């Protein structure tokens, strides 16, 4: 039975149904941006903003949209919020905008956003949709920042530009480059499998 406000919708996005670890969605920006902690935080915030806003609007108008045009309508709404985010970031932080590059507008085809709109927001009330969006967004942000801490820390010796290792640390360059990204996410998922496996015992 659906409750009016169900906080489970928020918490599930963080672990149980974490969009990256479990649903395997949103990989493109995850791997591309996780080379830098500050960029990852920016991406996480932008992403969460788009997800929450589109979830809210789609949930608000869900009864007025005929089934056969719902996908185009969702896409238009998501694209609008993505563009708003794109220009807002460009106006307030040109450096972040340059670093995020093409991945900011690419949020529009991010499977997480369209997936949540289709699977949840179109079928639930506004408050729950808001919680769902927030949870998924934060879940994504946690993973991307965690990866960035590893990649930037080991690969560059810094976190958010500040050195975290003693002077003579030779950065393991591999981590910042594309292969490093694939490796880190691979081991992260293996880690998740291990944790899950232990829980079962």
């Amino acid at each position, binding site marked *: 039975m659906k409750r009016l406000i169900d906080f489970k919708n928020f918490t599930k996005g963080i672990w149980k149904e974490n969009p990256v670890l479990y649903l395997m969605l949103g990989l493109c920006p995850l791997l591309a941006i996780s080379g830098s902690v500050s960029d990852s935080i920016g991406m996480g915030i932008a992403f969460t903003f788009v997800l929450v806003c589109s979830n809210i609007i789609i949930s608000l108008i869900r009864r007025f949209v005929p089934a056969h045009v719902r*996908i185009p309508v969702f896409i238009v709404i998501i*694209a609008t919020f993505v563009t708003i985010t794109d220009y807002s970031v460009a106006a307030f932080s040109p450096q972040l905008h340059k670093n995020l590059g*093409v991945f900011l*507008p690419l949020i529009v085809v991010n499977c997480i956003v*369209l997936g949540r709109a289709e699977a949840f927001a179109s079928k639930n009330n506004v408050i729950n949709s808001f919680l769902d969006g927030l949870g998924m967004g934060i879940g994504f942000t946690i993973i991307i920042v965690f990866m960035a801490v590893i990649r930037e820390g080991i690969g560059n010796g810094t976190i958010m530009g500040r050195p975290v290792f003693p002077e003579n640390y030779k950065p393991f360059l591999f981590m910042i480059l594309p*292969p490093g990204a*694939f490796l880190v996410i*691979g*081991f992260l*998922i293996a880690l998740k499998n291990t944790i899950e496996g232990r829980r079962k015992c």
Partner: protein
Amino acid sequence: MLNEQNLFLIFLSAFLVNNILLIKFLGLCSFFGISSDIKASVGMGLAVIFVMVMACSVSWVVYHYILAPFHLEFLRTLTFILTIASLVQFEEIFIRKKAPALYKSLGIYLPLITTNCAILGVAFLGIDYKLTFIQNLLYSFGASCGYCLSILLFAGIREKLSTAPIPENLKGIPIAFITASLMSLAFLGFKGLFKL
């Protein structure tokens, strides 16, 4: 960034050096989903080539002849995604009527491509790099061939891997990522292949 390069180099650069999948991180979602099966990968790869070249060319025309002259560049995201979605719809209908055999092999991958970030990504890059129409055509062709190459190589490796002894927690997705990591490392070696 790619302005004065000759056309063959643009193709080669998109195909190998800056491979959209393994170096530029575009198109990953479908990459991991489809590549466990070689036949499906062939289908997806061909579908991507077909859609990407058309979608990027049409998007280029829309941007330069409709959006830019009216200073509507901010509608770029909206129009591109709608263009791609409708194009995929039309292509699906067209292929179903005119080439049923091709439709059978491409099958369900065609509509799946709409959310493939590679298509939209390459369309955007064609504009960001300030390419001409012909350069854009070659860039999208090279990029999609690069996608096809990567996914085929990957599917082949994964098939071999399915019979290899792998630790329990690394089975499936994790080992796939580690494989991708090694492939990406190999493709990184293409940098400096030629003085672009």
